[in-house]
């Protein structure tokens, strides 16, 4: 019966471990090349993880809300920490996005001179491995480990290859982020220890196991706050964004593209994958607080993006505003809002990376200055660059027809369902996005020709990064279902426990989905059934009838 099950397990020619560690391994291999070829080698080699990620996406079963391609090994047996990886609807598109953005960034670096290239590409490889690990980890401690590890390469990339006051900026960034993530570490350990203590089970940190070991309300509250702080700093959301301006100013362009594109998304992904399913009561309890934080962040960042004189900071603040929208969607605690947030993560990942590259191209024509005052009139001699810039701009301001529009629309729809006043105020900010995005485009591309501007058409060195991203933006605009279809089933399972507390959803729908997701994780495929049957069922709230029924089906 299981074989023809719509939620049947999917298989892929590779394991997820290969996907995670391939970038690091390739970076080490490429390190053996002579200095001249390291960059090109790294960029070409980075196509391999993209290919591996594509095989996973292609083999992904969209109807199955549970984990697929699971790797589960014991890492530290004394502590019950597992090396557990898996793909579900929440991370499948983000994994592909990660590999693509890293390839594009490496291509951008490869056609430019880089000081100490061996170390530089090693850090990029480690960064890609760590980001993929954070997306794929299905064990709380493993996730925290990758989440922290992710930061180390960027510490060095900013500190060694950055510009301006780079050392100060990088230390500030690391301390800000680590403050959150150390608290998250303590909270993660507490989750496992308290859950196992309350329920008398062995200590375990895997997401699926913890979901069945609910914490008491008071514990859930402080643990939620620790996780939320870590993620809000990383996203970043105002008022936890203190590191953002300095770090984004100092980061080398390829690094800032992936940092803003995918590294920041790990945090918003963490809300969906970890916080909502594991701490639904606290998520419901703090819903309004989080929505207000999101709203403040959106409004404040929109105002900043509109007033700053620095092209790169316009993009930086616009991404704070976009992350605010994503947070809004997540904490609308409705399936639509969550869908929109997830779609927007992908859209924004592509758009923000493309924006940073475009700004770098514009700065190259304005005598290296990223000040808006020094730009202007670039479009006259660079119509193709202007067109690409326009595509990015329209996507950024969520023009109807773009995928961003669909994302923002769904987020607002979800928020309307739960908190209409907040949704109304947030819609105003959608208009604000048009103001700052168009202002950036007009000040850079049109207006009077800036004093130091020497404009020229887009070069091959620039097109190598900007064109693929623009193509992806167009593709997403025509086919936004790419992300939506794959994620829906998993997303409903993730959001519904918290949503049910707010009374916005029909629980009968959830029961079917949850049972489907459970079916995968509790009752393993036929080959392992005997092993699975011996285990004491961990579910706490299964009523006896369904449990016995299911056992009967399996035997």
């Amino acid at each position, binding site marked *: 019966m299981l074989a023809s099950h719509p939620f049947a397990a999917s298989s892929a020619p590779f394991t997820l471990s290969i996907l995670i560690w391939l970038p690091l391994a390739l970076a080490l291999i490429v390190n053996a090349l002579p200095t001249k070829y390291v960059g090109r080698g790294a960029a070409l080699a980075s196509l391999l993880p993209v290919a591996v990620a594509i095989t996973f996406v292609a083999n992904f079963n969209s109807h199955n809300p549970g984990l697929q391609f699971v790797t589960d090994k014991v890492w530290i*047996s004394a502590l019950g920490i597992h090396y557990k990886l898996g793909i579900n609807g929440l991370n499948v598109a983000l994994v592909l996005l990660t590999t693509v953005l890293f390839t594009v960034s490496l291509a951008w670096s490869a056609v430019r001179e880089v000081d100490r290239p061996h170390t530089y590409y090693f850090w990029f490889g480690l960064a890609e491995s760590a980001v993929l690990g954070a997306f794929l980890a299905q064990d709380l401690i493993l996730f925290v480990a*990758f989440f*922290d590890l992710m930061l180390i390469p960027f510490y060095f990339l900013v500190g060694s290859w950055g510009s301006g006051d780079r*050392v100060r900026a990088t230390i500030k960034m690391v301390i800000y982020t*680590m403050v959150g993530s150390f*608290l998250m570490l303590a909270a993660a350990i507490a989750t496992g220890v308290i859950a196992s203590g309350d329920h008398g089970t062995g200590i375990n940190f895997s997401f699926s196991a913890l979901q069945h070991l609910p914490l008491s309300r008071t514990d859930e509250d402080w643990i939620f706050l620790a996780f939320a702080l870590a993620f809000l700093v990383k996203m970043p959301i105002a008022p936890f964004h203190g590191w953002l301006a300095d770090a984004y100013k100092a980061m080398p362009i390829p690094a800032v593209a992936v940092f803003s594109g995918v590294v920041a998304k790990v945090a918003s992904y963490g809300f969906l994958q970890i916080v909502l399913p594991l701490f639904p009561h606290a998520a419901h309890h703090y819903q309004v607080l989080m929505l207000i934080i999101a709203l403040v962040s959106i409004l404040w960042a929109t105002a900043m993006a509109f007033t700053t004189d620095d092209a790169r900071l316009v993009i930086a603040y616009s991404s704070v505003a976009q992350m605010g929208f994503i947070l809004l969607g997540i904490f609308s605690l409705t399936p639509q809002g969550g869908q929109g947030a997830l779609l927007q993560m992908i859209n924004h990942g592509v758009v923000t990376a493309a924006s940073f590259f475009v700004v770098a191209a514009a700065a190259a024509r304005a005598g290296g200055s990223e000040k808006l005052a020094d730009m202007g009139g670039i479009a006259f001699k660079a119509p193709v660059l202007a067109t690409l810039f326009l595509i990015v701009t329209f996507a950024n301001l969520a023009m109807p027809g773009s995928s961003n529009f669909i994302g923002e629309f769904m987020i607002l729809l979800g928020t309307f369902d739960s908190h209409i006043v907040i949704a109304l105020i947030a819609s105003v900010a959608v208009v604000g996005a048009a103001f700052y995005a168009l202002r950036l485009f007009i000040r850079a591309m049109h207006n009077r020709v800036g004093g130091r501007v020497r404009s020229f058409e887009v070069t091959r060195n620039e097109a190598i990064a900007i064109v693929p991203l623009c193509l992806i933006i167009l593709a997403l605009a025509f086919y936004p279902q790419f992300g939506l279809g794959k994620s829906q089933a998993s997303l409903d399972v993730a959001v519904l426990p918290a949503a049910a507390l707010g009374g916005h959803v029909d629980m009968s729908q959830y029961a079917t989905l949850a049972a489907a997701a459970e079916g995968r994780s509790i009752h393993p495929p036929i080959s392992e059934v005997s092993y699975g049957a011996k285990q004491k069922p961990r579910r706490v709230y299964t009523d006896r009838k369904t449990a016995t029924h299911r056992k009967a089906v399996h035997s």
Partner: protein
Amino acid sequence: MSSLILATAHIKGPHIDWAGLSPIAVLGVGALVVLLVGLAGQSEIRTRVVPALALLVLAGAIGTEIWRFTHAQTIIAGALRIDDLALIVDLVCAVSAVAAVLLSWRDDAPRAAGHGEFHALLLFSVMGMAVLISAQDIITLFLGLELLSIPLYILCAAEYRREGSLESGLKYLIIGSVGSATLLYGLAMIYGATGQTGFNQIAQVLAGSGPNGNLLGDPMLLSGIALVVVGFAFKASVAPFHQWTPDVYEGAPTAITAFMATATKAAALAVFLRFFDVAVISEQTKWAPALAALATATILIGNVGALGQTSLKRLLGYSGVAQAGYMLSGVIVGTRLGISATILYVIAYLLMNIAAFAVIQHQQYASGDDRVSGLAGLGKRSPVLGWSITLAMLALAGVPGTIGFIGKFQLIHALVDGGYGWLAIVLVVGAMISLGYYLRVVAAVWMSPEGAHASIGASAVAPGACAGAGAIAPIAGGSQEADKLPYPEVAFVAALFAAATVFFGVIPGPLFHLASHAGAALTSLF
């Protein structure tokens, strides 16, 4: 004092199990041999054979420690307990001493003090640690403490022509003596209250099964425990009894600083574990809050103190204070999990600190000072050393993928499990503050302009050379060629220990296994 002597005088020639005693005996005999060989006239023998012999003795000690593993026994009429907890910490001290011998191989300190004396004192100190760690009787405890401390007072002042070294030794002598005296007074009070010297007997009296009835809450006993806490706190540099630490660390020869920072601290924490979690465990409700307050103060004071330091040795001194606070938190919970967490962190602390001190020693050879800014461009000049100190710093900060992360993880685990969740938060806050200075060191290694080093190196050599006849400056001479790894043994120590921090950070299984043995050693706990 005389009553103490009388109390032990009636034990007529206790049976000595030489096999059980071997980890300690090897060190004692070896130290005497090293001292005698050091009297040889030929300088070749003194400079080469003596250190090699010292390494051999330490290898013998390590060998016997591994041999006696899992053979827990109480020897010499209950004075010493050679169990897995003791053997693991003995091992930590011995490995630290090996590193100290290698780091001082061409240092000035052994030459100034005489090679035989220097190495013999080092071995005696290790022996003192072994006695202290195994002590199961308050008299043995005090003997071990003095045997560990007195050689260290001398070793700190080994470079007696250098003002800093003398100052360091004198300071350590005075403060250490105050600490010892306080401890002795406390031990006397505990003896006075319980009438027993053995840890287990004291525990029995406190549990109410002794002849004097229930003593819990007895003021004399509590004052005794408080004084013992202070005495131990001096040794483990727990705030507010830590003020000597940065000064002594800065002045002492680097190899000795490395040894003190790791081995002394390990021994002091082991004795914390054995004394508090065996002898006076029944009074846990009284001493645990006090120790928790000390640990909190230590973590915060150590980390904040390190922020402003420019000397690497002082920085690591303050960082060591903070780390002592972390380790102390494992003692407080008084569970097997807590003990194994402390032991795990002691091992982690050894690996991380020795790697860092090896790089500092290298920098002192090369440029004559230990300023953070002196590390500028190290990553480019010598990637091995650059990576070593980078990994050591990241591990000390608790970055995942390193042993520091695993150690902090297990400590937080033990704290949450033992009902001290708030102390776990303090630990985490401490770790956040610590990033401020650890990252500054890493930034200096990789992110400072190359040119900065040359000028700093040149200006720093001059005062170093003037400081004494035996200054190291002539070896390096501030020349750039000198930076190209002319000190293979130092680079080897740095690379080995840094690699170990990563290896055990990724594959911590074996260390967990060891640490759980240590936790199981104290059978009174659960």
